[in-house]
Each structure stands twice: as C-alpha cells, then as structure tokens.
C-alpha cells in the first residue's frame, strides 16, 4: 500500500474516534445540565440562568412559577436557592467540559484519545 494512502487511512481512523469522543462528551455534559426540581425537569442553559437572575433582580424571589422542559409550570419557593444550585451545576459542568475538551483537542492519535 502506498504510504500516502496508509497515512490517510490512519488519519481517517483518528477522525472517527475523535468524532465519537466529542459526541459522547457533549452528551455527558448535557446530562449533567439536566436538573430535576419539585417534580419538573429543567435544562440548565443561558436562557434559564438569565431568566432566574432577572427575576431575582426584580425582587421576585419567592414562590415563582417557572416552565420546565415540558412547558409544565413548576413552583419554586426559594428562587435564590434554585439560582445557586443551577449556577453551581452550570459552572462545574462547563468547567469539566472545557477540561475534557482540551484533552481531546490535544490528542493526536487514537491511542491518546482513548487513554
């Protein structure tokens, strides 16, 4: 087999592994950003974080109804506590995402990607 073709196949294998690693990492973080509270399921994203922060800024921090992923109304008694929980979860998950993403980015072979 010509060397050029062999190298291309090696690179193709690397890209396939890279693609699976990136996909599963993204899904892992999505799972970490799923948050169950008071019978509802929330997706912690920038919209939710901003909306909650805005409500607290407007002095609406007790007994607030927030729509969850299924658009169901969920009563949150203490919004400050809720905000702190979702902020903590968001920062720890995105930091983990960044750290693991950097590891993947720096890996230049199948062996380092899966180690």
């Amino acid at each position: 087999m010509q060397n050029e073709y062999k190298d291309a196949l090696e690179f193709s294998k690397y890209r396939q592994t890279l693609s699976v690693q990136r996909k599963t990492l993204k899904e892992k973080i999505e799972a970490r950003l799923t948050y169950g509270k008071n019978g509802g399921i929330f997706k912690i994203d920038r919209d939710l974080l901003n909306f909650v922060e805005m409500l607290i800024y407007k002095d609406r921090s007790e007994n607030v109804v927030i729509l969850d992923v299924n658009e169901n109304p969920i009563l949150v008694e203490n919004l400050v506590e809720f905000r702190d929980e979702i902020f903590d979860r968001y920062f720890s998950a995105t930091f983990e995402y960044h750290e693991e993403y950097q590891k993947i980015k720096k890996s230049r072979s199948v062996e380092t990607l899966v180690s």
Partner: protein
Amino acid sequence: MKKGVVIFAHNNRQIDYAKMALASGGLAKKHLGVPVSLITDQSTVDWLKESNLWDKALQTFEQIIDVERPADLQQRKFKDGKESVTAPFKNSNRSSVWDLTPYDRTLMIDCDYFIFSDALNEYWECESDILISTKYNDVQGNRIGYLDKYISDTGVRLLWATTVMFTKNENTKVFFELVKHIKDNYKKFADIFRFDNRMYRNDISFGIARHILYGFETDNDYAMPPVLSVPDMDLVYDVNENGIQLLTSNANDYTLCNIKDRDIHIMNKQAITRHIDKFMELV
C-alpha cells in the same frame, strides 16, 4: 417514598445474566446511592451459589426475589461482533415488575445496562407516574434505523424499556396490566399494529401500551433520557478505571473509542461476559 432499582436476571446455558446483574446492580448502587433488588428464579439462584457468588449477591442486593422461571418460548440469535450464538431469551415477565417491586418509586433496568453516573437521580421526583426512554442513542451516532424509532414501517413509536421508572399506584398498575395483555395476545396486536412478532420484545409492548393509554396519540410527556447503546455488532475491547474501550463497527472496519462516566447499554452479551470480572472490579 422508598425508591430503588430492580433488575431481572434469568440465566440460560449460554449467558450468565445473574453475574451481569451483579455488576449492573453494584454499579447502580454505587452511583445512584439507592438500594437494588434482583428478580430471578431458583435455578439462577442455585447457579449463583455454585459459582461462589451468593455472598456477593447478598451484599449487592437488598432483596432477591424468587419467581417462576419464564418459559423457553423463544430462541434468539445473540450477536457477538461478526459471530453469533442462538439461545433461549427469557424476557417475558417484565410486566410483573409492578407486583414484585419492593419500592414505591422503582427504576427498572436491564442487566446489560451499566450505570456510571448519577444522571438518573434527577428523575426520582419527576411528577410523571411512569417514565420510559423514547430514544435510542447509538454510541457512534449514525447507525439508527427506522425500526429503532418505530415498532414497524407503519406502526407507533418504539420505547426503550432498558430504563423504566415508575411509581407504584393505580395508574401504573393499569399500564403494566396492559403490557401483560399485549404480551399474552402478541399475535393479535401484531396484526393490528403491523409489527414483526417472531420474537417478543418488551420495547414494542411498552410502546403500544403507552400509545393506547395516552388516547392513541403520540405524547410528549416526560421521558427517561435517551439510552446510550452499543449494538451487538460492536465489541468490548477493555474495561478499566479509565472507562470502557469499545470497538464500534463500521462498514469494513472497527473504530476504537472510550466511554467514561456515562450510563451505557451494551447489547453484546458475550462481550460483557468476557469482561465481566473487570466490570465487577469497578463496583
């Protein structure tokens, strides 16, 4: 409300489901922090004792519930990469979980589902009485066919009974009784819903039961997260504290990848069996 995990395991001559359930149950207990119970039969219990795993089983499971062994009504081809073996498939008693579970809120998982995160803990308090996965998530991402989403070309949505969470109440009793009715009249329902009835699948019965109970509509109610799945054409290369290394099958080749800290459904039973001691070391 007492919550816990329930696993069914009925051994056949080829596959040691009980040992698989030990690993699966141990990992669920470790990562979710809830008790786990095993539903099994006397011959599988005898095998656990013969294999010197009985003490381990008593440590892992809060309760070991002995039920009648389901009949060997169907044979299934269990793929192992490019090889395969045919063995009896005893999956027909899942609908009895409502009667058998010792918990008020139960997470029922397959014994080839390995929990490596606490992600499912978010669903215990969810206000839905029953949650089932509606989506199959292929580990490689691109090997999902129409029949992984629907029970047939013209049928209703397929559900993935690999992870089912439910509260024991009258609503869920109706659900599981309907699943049993569909199982007992599988041929009739196959004629109505136009699915292949050669092998009994819980995923199909659960899908139809939910469709009927939601007024013959596809619902968008709460669901368990998509089941990250490794089809039986893939192989397990290694299992260690760095994760599960898999060889995922492409058209002519395999791709090596590593899955870490993710809950994972590995359909290749022989591949699990070859590495089962390594899975047990992670408990």
